[in-house]
Structure formats: structure tokens, C-alpha cells
């Protein structure tokens, strides 16, 4: 059981994913929400790399994770820009308070 295998990595990634999701859902600050997103992406990445090692996928998994890291950066940049814009408009970045658009 303690012998580390694929499942252990997947277990870590699952927890990371859940925590990321938790952050996205619960944190008010938009930047913390973004951090949650990063956690989710990292969880996925762990999976890819783990499967690359233990599974039949080979290096392709690592390639994917590389791409994901780059995409995460781009996404973070755009998201941050938007958050800054929000800050300019609303003088706060609390996601739950920005709900003018609704029924």
C-alpha cells in the first residue's frame, strides 16, 4: 500500500483538483479564484505526467503538460488583465459582489 504507484499520484492530483475547485467556488477574491484554476490545471498536469510514466502514452503526456503550462500562463495573463479592469470599474475584485448581470 505504501509502495508508491500510479494511484498515489492520481490521488494527489484528485485532491489538488478538488482543492482547486473549492477555491474557485468559495474564495471571494478573484485572484484567489484564479489560483484555484491554476491548481486544477496542475492537477491535470500531474495526471498527464503520471500516465506518461506508468501508462502506454509515453512522452506524449509530457508534451501535453508542457503545452498546458504555457497555456496556463497565457490564461493567467488575460484573466489578470480582466481582473485589473474589474478593479478599475468596481474598485474591488470580489467575484460574488459582481452580479449585476442576472435575472
Amino acid at each position, binding site marked *: 500500500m*505504501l*509502495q508508491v504507484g*500510479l494511484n*498515489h*499520484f*492520481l490521488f*494527489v492530483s*484528485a*485532491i*489538488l*483538483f*478538488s*482543492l482547486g*475547485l*473549492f477555491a474557485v*467556488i*468559495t*474564495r471571494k*477574491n*478573484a*485572484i*484567489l479564484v*484564479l*489560483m*484555484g484554476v*491554476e*491548481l486544477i490545471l496542475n492537477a491535470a*498536469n*500531474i495526471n498527464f*505526467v503520471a500516465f*506518461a*510514466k506508468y*501508462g*502506454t502514452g509515453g*512522452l*506524449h503526456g*509530457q*508534451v501535453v*503538460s*508542457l*503545452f498546458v*503550462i*504555457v*497555456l*496556463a*500562463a*497565457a*490564461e*493567467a*495573463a*488575460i484573466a*489578470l*488583465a480582466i*481582473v*485589473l*479592469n474589474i*478593479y478599475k470599474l468596481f474598485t*474591488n475584485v*470580489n467575484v*460574488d459582489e459582481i452580479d449585476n448581470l442576472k435575472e
Partner: protein
Amino acid sequence: MSLFDIFFYLFALLTVISAFFVVSVKNVVHSGFYLLFTLFGVAGLYVLLGADFVAVTQVMVYIGGILILLLFGVMLTNKITNVEIKSGATNVLPAIVVIGTFAGALVSIITRTNWSESPSPAPQTTIGALGKLLITDYVLIFELLAILLLVALIGATSIARKKNENASEV
């Protein structure tokens, strides 16, 4: 329990615990720092998985880029004088219920699954192979990413720049 296992548990604990703090501490800046440890732990896991190049990229891009970006974001969205860079929580109860269920399902499914495993270990160094893959099989995506980054750059500047445009905008 081999050294590999010990390191795994080390990095795993580091990752999970700091991630837990990321989502739970009030202070946004503290969260950022905990995120640093999480990312670092993940990088460690990469190394354990034989993905040295990915680990390096993780450290450079994530820690060196994204995290800094996020911290800048924290600074910029709070007045400097504002000491309380804190963030409350919302939706906690539904989140615990929903995500608890979800995580349970995830974990149980993952552990029960018979993954397609192959005994062959990964090659010792991956940089060469990776590089080859990037410019052969994935060359299109590679180029596409370049364009994506360019577009993202333009997009980000477009939305975040200070300069005021035409006043007629509503």
C-alpha cells in the same frame, strides 16, 4: 519503503498541505506564498515521475511567471495602504457538500480503475525526445501556441492598459 517513496510522500504532503492553505487562509498574499510551495511540490512530483524538463518548465513558468503575475495582481488590486489584504469565503457549505461528494467519487473511481499500465520505464533524460516531438509531431501546436501567446498578449494589454480611449464610450 524506498527513497522514491519517501520523496513522493514528502512532495505530496508539501503539495497537498500548502494547497490546502492556499484555499483556506484569509490573507491573499499568504495564499500566494502557499501556492509557491504547492507548485514547487508539483515540480518535485514531476521529477519523481521522470519528467525533468517539465519540472524545470514548471518552476520557471509557474513560479517565475504565473505566480509573480498573480502577486502583482494582488498588489494592483489593493491599495498599498490597505493592510488587510484579506479575502472572505462564500458558498462554503454547498462547496463542501458538492466537492466532498465529487472528490469522493473521483478518488473511488481512480483507485478502482484498472489503468492501462506498461512496465517500461521512461527514458532517463527526456529533453531530447521532447524537443524532437515538439518540432515533428506537434509542430503545428507549437506554432499555434506562439500565435496564441501573441494574441493573449495583445488581448491582455488591450484590456488592461491605462490609456483612455475615445470618450464617447459609455
